[in-house]
């Protein structure tokens, strides 16, 4: 097990390196630069700024410098937010997004798993059809639509919930709901199909023949077998939701990492683009390792080698 984890982490470092390299060169292939939009900049001043941030050097030299810095844990200064290092930005913004995303993942699992199981156990009945309709709608409705509708009805019309920021506990409700709509629907569909598969298995009939109650046969015998596809989906989901959603953060004015991630691109804030991309990549890699380990705990047939 320990050997497996070490191996996976080494591979993860290699993957992160490839991601960093590709991002660096692709980013520089895109026309434009960080200082072009600023008005009335004399060519001399621009050259001076580029020299200050090392952008005047050949691309390959810039790459080596950057990789050297990042190995020491330094992701550089933001070009747009003067005085902030990329490390600072991630350190400040990530906890906000992570808390929101974590709650959304939890909510998605708590809604999706029971709904999917209920649908499977009542296959073809009214309740199954209702759940299918809702989960299909949840997958089809885009976040910006559900967010704005919620905001319009709950904040503007009924004045129940605050419409922006994360100042009170109540202000978490709408962003978390908006974030979990899609994953909760998706998980309920995953759960329904894998549960249907498990219900038809011989060992479920064995449980029934032993005299085990329906409730216990679902919770003990079916759930643990049926949950694997959901666990697979949870790894990347955790990474994506915890690093923040641009749309939700924009709509609800939340100071999260997702917003920084996307807005760094049009402003050509090179160090911030690199920093957030590498951070997201590492997070996904880590979550996948965690999922693999969780797999081995859930299903003893899976051996980590």
């Amino acid at each position, binding site marked *: 097990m320990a050997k497996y984890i070490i191996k996976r982490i080494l591979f993860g470092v290699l993957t992160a390196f490839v991601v960093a390299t590709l991002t660096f060169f692709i980013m520089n292939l895109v026309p434009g630069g960080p200082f072009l939009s600023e008005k009335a900049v004399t060519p001399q001043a621009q050259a001076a700024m580029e020299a200050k941030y090392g952008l005047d050097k050949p691309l390959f030299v810039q790459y080596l410098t950057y990789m050297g810095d990042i190995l020491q844990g330094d992701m550089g200064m933001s070009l747009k937010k003067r005085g902030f290092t990329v490390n600072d930005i991630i350190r400040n913004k990530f906890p906000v997004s992570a808390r929101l995303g974590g709650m959304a993942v939890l909510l998605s699992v708590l809604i999706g798993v029971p709904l999917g199981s209920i649908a499977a156990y009542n296959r073809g009945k009214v309740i199954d059809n209702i759940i299918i309709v809702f989960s299909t709608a949840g997958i089809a409705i885009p976040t910006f639509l559900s967010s704005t509708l919620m905001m319009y009805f709950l904040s503007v019309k009924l004045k129940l919930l605050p419409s922006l920021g994360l100042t009170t506990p109540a202000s978490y409700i709408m962003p978390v709901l908006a974030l979990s709509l899609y994953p909760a629907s998706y998980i309920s569909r995953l759960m329904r199909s894998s549960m249907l598969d498990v219900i038809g298995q011989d*060992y479920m009939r064995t449980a*029934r*023949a032993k*005299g085990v109650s329906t409730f216990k046969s679902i919770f003990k015998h079916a759930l643990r077998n049926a949950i694997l596809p959901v666990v697979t989906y949870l790894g990347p989901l955790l990474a994506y939701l915890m690093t923040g959603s641009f749309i939700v953060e924009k709509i609800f004015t939340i100071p999260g990492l997702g917003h920084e991630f996307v807005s760094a691109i049009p402003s050509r804030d090179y160090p911030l683009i690199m920093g957030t991309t590498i951070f997201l990549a590492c997070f996904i890699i880590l979550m996948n390792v965690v999922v693999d380990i969780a797999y081995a705990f859930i299903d003893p*047939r899976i051996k980590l080698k």
Partner: protein
Amino acid sequence: MSDYLVDIKHEKLSFFTPVGEVKALNDVSIQMKEGEVLGIVGESGSGKSVTAYSLMGLTADNGKIVDGEVNFNGHRVDLMTEKEIRKIRGKEISIIFQDPMTSLNPVYTIGNQIEEAVRVHGDKTKEEARQRPRELLTLVGINEPDKRLKQYPHELSGGMRQRVMIAIALACEPKLLIADEPTTALDVTIQAQILELMNDLRRKLKMGIILITHDLGVVASMCDHIAVMYAGEIVEYGTTDDIFYEPKHEYTKGLLKSIPKFQEKEYSRLVPIEGTPVDLLNPPKGCGFAPRCDSCMKICLERKPEKMIINADGTFEDMPDETEYNGKHYSRCWLQKKEQFELQDNAKGES
């Protein structure tokens, strides 16, 4: 209360499917005493598993008993609710399935699964429930029980898993064990071991066994009585000797002919039963086997034959209407009456 452990009277069971009512059992009556071994043989879809499953309410959701009575150990199983049946499942009546590879839950240890069967009926103390799985594994002949209890199903061989299934079935010392093709998925050498084990346990625990199989070799070695099923009916019933040495129904004869024999020359071919089983969505008016029968008569296609008792001297008599267990050899075939028909015809001709 009847004197029998199992007393099924005129059971009719149908599966209600989107295409229509599939009449899986058509007037099945079986009696069985405590400690007896009954073999049910027949081809796929003949209703042998359904008959046994209906004894413990394990038929699929769309299967309903339409008519008749199912008595087991003093319970009217056909009238019980799911909750009531659950109390006798695993306690008074147990089952082992065909495929031991898929019948155990892959994510729990053997010990956990046996202990669950012990605990579910809750009449054992904690200490007893903890000791019981070990005893059971020893009983079914698994060596190193302590090691096996901690293992998962995928770490055991097929034969070993079937032994574990038997251990689970025996957890509460049931009065009746249903063995649904227990050896079909196993290697031939393991088959013999499992049968021997079941025979041995039956003597030790004095339990009844219903052995469902399509392998006549398996029933011959174990059963007291054999019921031959075809198209949801018992077409012939008798002691093992009756069935093997004095088969009366053409279907039974066909089954016996299809067993390979050692004395035969290597070039003599096996005799198959031609044709396919009947469609139970639209069962025929007459005898279900008639379209495949070599000795089919006109009446076979028009009227269902009644049960006829076959006496030891080869004479036959009509079976009384009320099903009464007497272990007597009976069959449902018009051929028994052929002689009588011929006499009648002659009498008509003469007059």
